[in-house]
Structure formats: structure tokens, C-alpha cells
């Protein structure tokens, strides 16, 4: 992929992601409820941050809030800055230029993110052309094929003309990653990218994400419930519970010496493949009593 002058300019503007005092609330019958409250995040360019938590911890809403993708009823306060730009004060049109270009997202279910009526090549081309005005179709097609080659889809030139249903789950996730990479984003947000995949395919996709990070210097935010996955992929982690960050730090420090009671108990509850640990210690965040 050739780097144009606008690309070089854009690269120069690459900066850290900073989230300050992010709060997301939803109105309910009994008043407003904070699903994310007073969250701070810092991500250095090129590094990888894991956001872990159980369902309902607010980890996915955090990423949607950062990108201005919350449902209409939700309200958001706080600031999100990427480099020197404040994403929270941007208009929808300005945000749309950032999303999918400087920041790309990958979700759990590739089949619901892809349009079944168009070939995957056409969809990658469309994503690319919407961010690079004046690019010819031929050039966009070339970018799409190259992006598919980069995620190791064999015979990419032919596969670009296939429809989503003609790909397996793992291959579809590769297509989504190819689409995300086409614009050479500086930040990739992956929300449970391997949760729906078989374990051998998961290993391939995780290896691919690592390889991409090494080669392109893209920063990564990985949102997952899987502690083992986050321990393998990221440098720093944030542990969330009920919308609040309970603990944060370098991945080794958190995994070898968790400080917060919740983190300690969460780690105790994780089943290990290497041995059986008697009764699994369980915690009861959902009211399950035991």
C-alpha cells in the first residue's frame, strides 16, 4: 500500500488516546443509571490496552462511548482525546471521518457486520473509498486485495469476489480485520473479536493481531471477558465492574499480584487448563447466592 502525502501528514498527527472522567448514563423509570462512571483511560501510541470485565461491567459501552456510537437515549460526559483532537466536541460529520479511518473497530460477530448482498471485496473497497476521496475503483480494489493478503486470506484476488456466506467464521473475522486495516488506522478497537470462534481459529486471529501490531505500529484496545486472552495480547489492563474501573496496571503486575478484592476473586474463579483446583472460588456479583 503506497503512502500518499495525506497519509504522511496523518501519521505525523498520530497521538495518544486519553479518556478523562467518562460517564455514560441511561434514563430508567427510577431515574438515571450510570453504566460507565468516571472512567479514565490512557493509551500510548503503539501499545495495547485490555479492558476486561464480566457481562454488564460496561466494557463495550466504554468503547462505543469513545467513538460516539451510543444509542440515542444514552448521555455521555467527560472527554476523549486522540492526539490533539477532542472527539467529544466533534460534530457527527467530523467523527465519521475519524471512525473507520484513524480508529477502526472489530466486533464479535462478523456475519452481522458484513452485508450478505455484496462481495467482501466490494465492502472493503467501499469502506476505503468513503475515507479516501478521489480514489479510483481500480485502486480501491487493489487496496482491498492487498488488505486481504495481509490477513493471510489465500488467493485474495479471487476471494475478493466471494460473498460473506462463502467464508468460514474465522475467515470472516479476517475479512473484518482486513477492512479495518485498509485505511491504516492508528488505533484498532477489538470488542470480543475471538469469542465466537473455535479455539484453534482464535489462536490464529490473536497471532494475526499481534503480527499487525508489530508491523504497522497500530495501537490496540482489546475488550474481552477472557482473562487468558487479555494476558497474552495486551501490555496494560483495566478491570471493570459495574461501570467502574476497580484496578489497572501493567498486565504482569495485575496477573501476578492483583490488589483489589474483586480482581482477586475473579482470577480465582477462572478454570485452569493445567490443573484442577478443587472447588472453584466463586464470587457473586449477580445475586447468585452460594
Amino acid at each position: 500500500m503506497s503512502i500518499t502525502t495525506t497519509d504522511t501528514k496523518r501519521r505525523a498527527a498520530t497521538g495518544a488516546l486519553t479518556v478523562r472522567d467518562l460517564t455514560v448514563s441511561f434514563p430508567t423509570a427510577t431515574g438515571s443509571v450510570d453504566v460507565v462512571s468516571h472512567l479514565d483511560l490512557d493509551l500510548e501510541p503503539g501499545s495495547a490496552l485490555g479492558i476486561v470485565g464480566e457481562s454488564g461491567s460496561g466494557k463495550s459501552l466504554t468503547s462505543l462511548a469513545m467513538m460516539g456510537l451510543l444509542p440515542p437515549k444514552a448521555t455521555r460526559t467527560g472527554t476523549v482525546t486522540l492526539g490533539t483532537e477532542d472527539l467529544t466536541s466533534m460534530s457527527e460529520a467530523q467523527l465519521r471521518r475519524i471512525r473507520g479511518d484513524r480508529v477502526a473497530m472489530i466486533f464479535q460477530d462478523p456475519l452481522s457486520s458484513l452485508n450478505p448482498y455484496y462481495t467482501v471485496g466490494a465492502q472493503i473497497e467501499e469502506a476505503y473509498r468513503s475515507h479516501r476521496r478521489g480514489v479510483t475503483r481500480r485502486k480501491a480494489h487493489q487496496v482491498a486485495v492487498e488488505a486481504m493478503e495481509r490477513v493471510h486470506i489465500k488467493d485474495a484476488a479471487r476471494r475478493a469476489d466471494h460473498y460473506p456466506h462463502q467464508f468460514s467464521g474465522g475467515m470472516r473475522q479476517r475479512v473484518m480485520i482486513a477492512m479495518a486495516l485498509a485505511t491504516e488506522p492508528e488505533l484498532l478497537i477489538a470488542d470480543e473479536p475471538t469469542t465466537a470462534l473455535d479455539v484453534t481459529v482464535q489462536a490464529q486471529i490473536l497471532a494475526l493481531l499481534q503480527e499487525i501490531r508489530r508491523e504497522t505500529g497500530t495501537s490496540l484496545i482489546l475488550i474481552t471477558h477472557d482473562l487468558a486472552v487479555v494476558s497474552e495480547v495486551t501490555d496494560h489492563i483495566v478491570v471493570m465492574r459495574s461501570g467502574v474501573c476497580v484496578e489497572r496496571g501493567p498486565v504482569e503486575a495485575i496477573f501476578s499480584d492483583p490488589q483489589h478484592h474483586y480482581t482477586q476473586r475473579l482470577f480465582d474463579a477462572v478454570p485452569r487448563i493445567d490443573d484442577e483446583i478443587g472447588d472453584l472460588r466463586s464470587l457473586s456479583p449477580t445475586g447468585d447466592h452460594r
Partner: protein
Amino acid sequence: MNATPILQAEHLVKEFPVAGSGGLVTRGRTFRAVDGVDLTLAAGETLALVGESGSGKSTTARLVTRLIDVTSGTVRFDGQDITGLRGRDLHEFRSEVQVVFQDPYSSLNPRHTVERIVTAPLLYQGRKPPGGSKRFTQSLMERVGLDPNQWQRHPAQFSGGQAQRIGVARALAVGPRLVVCDEAVSALDVSVQAQIINLLRDLQREEGFSYLFIAHDLAVVRQIATRVAVMCGGRIVEAGDRDDVFDHPQHDYTRTLLAAVPRIRPEWEAARRARAAERHSARREPVDASPARRGA
């Protein structure tokens, strides 16, 4: 334990017709989902059937529970061939074998109360709940760790882990000898998952029934299985005692599968567990300072 195995399957084959093939005259093509599977499950043991999606593990579970019919092969339950059972005999078989499914919300009728859900298997058998419907429901709820006062609630009023407990209670209602868990803990959060795994193990200790445990998560299987059978492409490629399969896998596919599982670094784990043990012993009398964390 050389008694008759509770469940024994020989050369199980299941073929499904391929949609769009064949016509009025020609027979359509078929897809062999299960291709010559042999299984043996001893009473009181847990056999885990592991494999990736499409490996045929769920189809195998459905065959041995007679939820679908075999194409060929035999399934013996307690020595009796059940592949051809009909009518009353099949009814009786159903009171011996129960299934817990992956998603509690879709496997429990949302319009029914807990009472109606857990007594349904008995009514199907034409039996009356012993001690009356309410008391029977409440005692079952207590056994699976639910609040018995909530016996008239609906599934939606429970959390995912609690709803799965209702699924377990329903399976226990008829006093089965074999419980098939088809990805029964896969959809649950880790903390809730740990609770349900503990519950399943406790119940087995108390009741002595056997589990056929279908799962794709090998770490969960390590916690619950006595024996493990690894499936791939409709066949069992390796079977053996749990620790043998995990620690000394013989088949290439098993090795690939085990290697692909993400792991927390052992040195981080060791450091964390050592600190947890310190905290634990600091809270107790100094007499009990041994790191006796490996229960049962």
C-alpha cells in the same frame, strides 16, 4: 468398578440429507455428522466430549439420549439397547436420562413458572410430584441453591446463573441416572460458571449419577471430567483418563487443540497463588499455615 457401564455406544453413525441434492428419483447426498463413534461411560463418572464446532459432539449427545435416531450403530443404557425403544419403554428411558442445555432462557419456557418447569418432566412421565407440587419444587430449588420462596417466578426474573440452576433442577426432577450437559456452562460469566461447575460436582457427589459433558472449553473440562474423548470430523480421535489426555496427548489433533488454548503465564499464576495463600493463612491461626488449597 467392572459393573455394566451405564452408557455404551458402538459404531454410532448419523447421516443427514444434504439440502438441494437428490430429486424424485435419485437419492440425495448425505452428510455424515457422526462417523463410527464408540463410547463407554461408567456409573458415577463424567465423560467429557470435546471438539470444535462441527466435530459432531452435540449430534452424538442427541443420539445417545434418543433425541434423534441413529442411522446405524447401537446405544446401550444399563445394558439395554435403546436405539429401537418405543412407547412406554422410551418413556421409561426418558426418566433415566436428562439434558441441561446451553442457553437457559431459550430452553426454559418464558411463560411458565419455576414450579411448572421443574414438574413438567414428572407430568410427562405420568407421575405425581412426591409431597405435592409446591413442596417438591421448593426442595429441588434448595438443592440447586435457589431461594425456594421464588417458586412461582418466571425465568426472566432470574439472572443467567440462576436460570441455569432452574435447568439443572428440571433435570434432577425425575431422579435421572445420566445427565447430559450440552455446553451447560458455556454462556455464563466466569464467576457464575465457577458456581455452576461446583454445583454440578456437588450434586454428582451426593446423587452418584453420571455426566456426559459436551464442551468446547478445555479448561472447564479439566475441572469436571473423569474421562475425556476428543472428537474431530465425526470421529473420536483420542479418548482416555482426563489427566492422561491433558498431560500426554497422543493424537496430533489433541495436541493442536491443547496448544491453541490461551493461557495465563504459569509464573504469574504461581506468584498470584502464593500471595493468595499468604493472605489466606495470615487471616487464620498460624497452626493452619499449610497451603492446602487443593480440595477434594
